[in-house]
């Protein structure tokens, strides 16, 4: 019985998350309109210091935040997917087992480095580097550009893509590869036409998980992306993300009834549901893949 109670803890946690988020979110929407939040294009949650000040309720249009998140996530995936996939292909299909045994853990160190380190790296080195690079081309680049954050996040995500892809591609039975080679296919043809399609669901699952990681990633963006909620698709400008806003809204002393604080919970709920959806989707695709080969 004790066992059962313990196993319930996990469920309770989930419920705790949902309930606390929903509870605060409802309070938030009692102060700010739902429509404005989802479709408003202006975000400036800075409420007045004093309650009675005019315009005390900032504006809570979350679209710029969402697009910012999307922008940074896209950039990171643009880095991580090709690099991760090709690394996985090389490691699982070309590299000798010894090489693979060496390089796979090394690659996984990338995922083990705390995100705060990446954030620091992005803010300290990559941001300025990109800016100076951009300036040498005559572009105006913000130090806290989406590109810098996305780039670094992409690097961090590489092992999330490569590790799982590597696993699923290695799990494609040797016999399929032999079958194709014996028909006179070259190695790359075998990989492209047989191994890759066979592993596709697993790879898609890996990418979905990586996306969910990227969306929920906090420290890199907090440190390297800006606070300004710009509605832009320009990777060289500063954008902000859901996680950044949550952190900035909640760090420091909070009053638990100001819309500013509560907005963070609303954003958290959105974040939770998006990642939840992505995770479930990823789990389903991976499971489908497992069924095929077990």
């Amino acid at each position, binding site marked *: 019985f004790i066992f059962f109670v313990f196993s319930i803890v996990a469920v309770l946690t989930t419920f705790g998350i949902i309930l606390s988020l929903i509870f605060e979110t409802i309070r938030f929407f009692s102060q700010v309109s739902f429509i404005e939040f989802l479709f408003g294009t202006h975000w400036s949650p800075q409420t007045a210091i004093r309650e009675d000040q005019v315009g005390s309720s900032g504006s809570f249009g979350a679209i710029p935040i969402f697009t910012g998140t999307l922008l940074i996530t896209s950039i990171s995936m643009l880095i991580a997917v090709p690099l991760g996939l090709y690394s996985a292909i090389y490691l699982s299909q070309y590299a000798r087992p010894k090489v693979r045994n060496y390089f796979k853990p090394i690659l996984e160190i990338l995922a083990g480095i705390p995100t705060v380190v990446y954030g620091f790296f992005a803010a300290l080195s990559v941001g300025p580097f990109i800016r100076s690079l951009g300036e040498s081309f005559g572009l105006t680049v913000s130090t806290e550009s989406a590109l810098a954050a996305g780039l670094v996040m992409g690097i961090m995500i590489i092992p999330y893509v490569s590790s799982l892809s590597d696993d699923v591609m290695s799990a494609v*039975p040797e016999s399929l590869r*032999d*079958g194709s080679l*014996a028909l*006179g296919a070259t190695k790359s043809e075998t990989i492209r036409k047989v191994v890759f399609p066979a592993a596709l669901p697993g790879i898609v699952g890996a990418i979905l998980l990586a996306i969910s990681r990227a969306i929920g990633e906090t420290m890199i963006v907090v440190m390297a992306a800006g606070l300004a909620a710009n509605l832009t698709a320009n990777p060289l400008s500063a954008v902000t993300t859901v996680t950044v806003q949550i952190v900035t809204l909640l760090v420091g002393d909070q009053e638990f009834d100001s819309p500013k604080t509560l907005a963070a919970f609303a954003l958290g709920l959105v974040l939770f549901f998006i990642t939840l959806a992505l995770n479930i989707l990823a789990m389903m695709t991976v499971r489908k893949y497992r069924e095929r080969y077990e």
Partner: protein
Amino acid sequence: MVDSMNKNIETNGVRSSISDNPLIDCQDVDVYYGDKQALYSVCLGINEKEVTSLIGPSGCGKSTFLRCLNRMNDVIDTCSITGCIKINGEDIYDPNIDVVELRSRIGMVFQKPNPFPKSVFDNVAYGPRLHGRIIEKADMSNKVEESLVRAGLWDEIKDRLNEPGTSLSGGQQQRLCIARAIAVDPQIILMDEPCSALDPIATAKIEELIDELKAKYTIVIVTHSMQQAARVSQRTAFFHLGSLIEVGDTENIFRSPENEQTEAYVTGRYG
């Protein structure tokens, strides 16, 4: 009616010796995996349009030898091979030989059925497409049908060409793999224990298929079952510890092999 028992003994002299012009001619083939020698100067001729079976205890090098014939051992980094293997008089380990082209002349069927996770049609069409042999759509359909017919599978699955190959039963999958191999018009088909993952019924079907195929293809089959060798093959080669111990008429091998070791293996005396 003629006395078949006597006939075989009388004709031994002719059939059991390698024919003057074997299709595959191996001379002093040594194979190493790293430092470990897996085959010791194997000399073996394989006649055209006959089924030759390779038997021997586990790990004796049957598969290794088979994989030498279409250079599938190239895939293994540590594997090196010396000696000379000629097919149609052409040394297949010559540096000028294009491995891809060689393999398109030699079909291979594996122990576990391994259809690609594509449709039945695409499975069969894979080879011809790969080699750019057939481009026209209608030609391809014909080729696929022809191959499936020849593999005895057409009637069973002609309505299921678009289903994935993996959805077929084990025996059908194996025949699909044979169809896939046939589709590139190989001269030789290598089979590595093609029935060991199949139930008796599927095994029987494959055995019957092999019997039909030998009219058109030269077949080399690895099997761990002496009985299967007896059923499907005309000639049998016995390997032991990496050496070719005896090769001869299948009937002779199981009636009265010449070599003591062969007899020991065949009768279950091998320790």
